[in-house]
């Protein structure tokens, strides 16, 4: 009810069409809603700049014009009235009208952002410390692949703490809340790649929880799907493992150059003998790597925190084999 009322109200005040924003202050526009948001941003910028510059100029003018010579001169201020109803009402009503306009336009845009399209391509996004996983059309990837000029609804879930999915070029953002689903939608208007950031603080790897949206033409998107299918079917296991490690954010915590990060480096790991917090040592073999992926807390290496999330159910046997072969190849 309330929505319908506000919809009515906001349709009366549709923003007029203006040219694109100057891009220095905002990232490139790449979605259907970004033009509208930027238009509003720029209007607010214009009005606020006028107000700010007005205040500063008045201040500078008063200081120059009414500056006292010295304390000793004992100059007296001119008598002026201590209030002026007309003036005070004027400078109350003008900001009020302006803010009502801002509010209505902001509301209209917000309802648009929050109203999910019915016929959209649905993507399941999973956020976990500190990587993204996007699944749709039977594929999963650490990057979000979508076709251009298509409505996409991203359904968000978190396996651990709060995160937020932010695509600056699409002007949309949504918190990812553990224990419930949230969502956002967009329709990309440009092909290319655009950054994805995590915008809600989530700990050590927060600033590395970086990914990309890859916007394909519709034909390229079909080709990408086909290629993805072939890769998964025919890629040599170690190569598949390398690709998965990149996509699933393994490198947020593991390196392949021998330096330990959050977790142990993978270089020279396979076949080495390591000590565990339960007092045992063991030689790292296929079964231990599989266990570490599916049940990471089962055995904890000495000197490393027990922070790795489980990937059980997120990777199939072929993918786990790929990761094992990849780690094995890092001599």
């Amino acid at each position, binding site marked *: 009810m309330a929505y319908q009322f506000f919809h009515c109200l906001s349709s009366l005040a549709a923003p007029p069409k203006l040219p694109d924003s100057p891009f220095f202050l905002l990232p490139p526009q790449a979605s259907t809603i970004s033009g509208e948001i930027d238009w509003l*941003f720029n209007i607010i910028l214009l009005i*606020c700049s006028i107000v700010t510059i007005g205040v500063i100029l008045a201040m500078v003018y008063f200081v120059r014009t009414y500056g006292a010579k010295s304390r000793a001169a004992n100059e007296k201020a001119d008598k002026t009235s201590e209030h002026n109803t007309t003036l005070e009402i004027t400078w*109350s009503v003008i*900001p009020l009208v302006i803010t009502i306009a*801002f509010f209505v336009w902001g509301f209209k*845009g917000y309802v648009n*952002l929050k109203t999910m399209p019915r016929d959209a391509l649905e993507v399941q996004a999973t956020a976990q410390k500190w990587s993204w996983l996007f699944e749709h059309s039977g594929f999963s990837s650490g990057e979000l692949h979508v076709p251009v000029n298509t409505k996409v609804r991203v359904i968000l879930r978190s396996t651990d703490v709060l995160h937020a999915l932010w695509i600056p070029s699409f002007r949309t953002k949504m*918190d990812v809340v553990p224990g419930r689903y949230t969502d956002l939608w967009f329709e990309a208007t440009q092909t290319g790649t655009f950054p994805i950031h995590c*915008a809600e603080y989530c700990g*050590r790897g927060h600033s590395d929880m970086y990914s990309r949206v890859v916007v394909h033409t519709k034909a390229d998107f079909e080709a990408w799907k086909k290629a993805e299918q072939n890769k998964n079917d025919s890629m040599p296991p170690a190569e598949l493992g390398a690709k998965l490690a990149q996509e699933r954010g393994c490198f947020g915590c593991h390196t392949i150059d021998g330096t330990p990060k959050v977790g142990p480096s993978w270089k020279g790991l396979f076949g080495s003998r390591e000590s565990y917090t339960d007092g045992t040592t063991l030689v790292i073999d296929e079964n231990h790597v599989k266990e570490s992926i599916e049940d990471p807390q089962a055995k904890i290496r000495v000197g490393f925190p027990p922070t790795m999330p489980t990937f059980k159910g997120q990777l199939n046997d072929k993918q786990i084999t790929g990761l094992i072969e990849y780690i094995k190849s890092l001599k």
Partner: protein
Amino acid sequence: MATTTTTDFVSPQPSTTDNYLNNEKGILSWLLTLDHKRIGVMYLFSVLAAFALGGTFALLIRAELWTPGPTLPGVTADMYNQFFTLHGAIMVFLVIIPGIPAALGNIILPLQLGAKDVAFPRLNLLSYHVWILGACFMLLSLVLGAADTGWTFYTPYSTMTETAVIPAAFGAFVLGFSSIFTGLNFIVTIHKLRPKGMTWFRMPLFVWALYSTALIQVLATPVIAITLLMLIVERTFGIGIFDPLLGGDPVLFEHFFWFYSHPAVYIMIVPAFGVISEIIPVFSRKPIFGYKFIALSSVAIAILGFLVWGHHMFTSGQSVLAGTIFSAITFLIAIPTAIKTFNWLSTMYKGRIHLETPMLYALAFLWVFTIGGVTGMFLAVMSVDVHLHDTYFVVAHFHYVMMGGSITAFLGGLHYWWPKAFGRLYNETIGRIGALIVFVGLNLTFFPQFILGSRGMPRRYYNYLEEFQGLHQLSTIGAFTLGMGFLLTAYGLLSSLRKKFDAPANPWGATTLEWQTASPPPYYNFATPPEVTQGPYDGYENLEYDEKIRGYVPTKA
């Protein structure tokens, strides 16, 4: 005349031997004092020490952000997260919240009311001791493995991280009581201890501001106290309140947290409005324009401030209807705030403006706070906020308000009341240069952050995309400029303490009551209880500057 002439005529009463600073000696005479002025002075130096610590963390943050990824040797992402958590928690809970009310307010409020002390001197001392206890818990967290949750303590991260969240949260919990005690004390003091003839609309605007602030402190602080206690219970005993794995709801924590922390923003800025409202008329030699509006708008802002917490949560998953209501009320607060600015400007119109350090800070406040205020517009507009939420745009906005607004006003007030509180005139040249460096430094630090944010730089990031490096470096240069400005300012003020008492009773020609007693005031503040017969900013024409004493005296009839 054999004696030196500097001390004889500086004050209406001889103050060099009998004032609150030297009437008792020894450390215990300070730590156990019931004198509001001494408690205020202890608060002041404690807050300044906390400011130095919080500022050090700020400089570490800015230095680390000089390049993307690791910059300072040995500073890991974990340490960076601890730096910004400590910076935020210290600056909010230990510096800005007590800064103007507990430090300046304690020294000045009873003097402005012509009273001997606050209504409950023992409660006042307890408030300070509780503050020290809270500060100790904060420092304990620092020693035990500093919390890395951000000052917001958002769950479930704060219940899962292995850092010392409990001491930090408990410290904030304890500090809340200190804040409540001060607020309660001020409310009663203002109601009961006004002098004869001081009606509500003859109270100085600083008193109005402290009154509004005290209302928020008493009503809102219990909510954060309970929230932090629930967080501690969940973390310690695993009782599910906020953690979804235990059946809780993390968005509930956000609601609880902002239900206090948004009103707390007004605990931080409303006293600053009070300070500015004192300085501008005195240095323009003209009564304030629109007194009643400024007085009542502080109260209005205090009340409306309780109803806007959800504007921190436009992307959290709260309902569209809730967001809409929060957005609308947020705009309502913008109006009285804008009008205050116009009133301060109008006060300067046709005045005779003196540009000593307090006025420079007041002018800096007008400039910077206007930018801080109007950038709030972008964030109140829901659709634009979705893009800007949790970016450097927000960081820049609240630093323009908190640092550019509250801290600038605090420094202005500190210079303004310094001669009264300590009986010495500070070095005006150093004060002015310090104010100028602070003004340049804070714009250089925070203006680039608006652009960083709107272009796509999220906050609380250790690492960032290379395209942002130039703006980050500008901001870092600004932060160190700001740091130097503060050091110079501190030197200017503190070096005056080595001098003999040389301040006149009324160096600026103000008409509020605190200037009618000696500088520094005697222990009992006033020899005879003053009587009020006019508004707080009336009667500048009846004061005359006397060059010999470097202060104002009543014009001889």
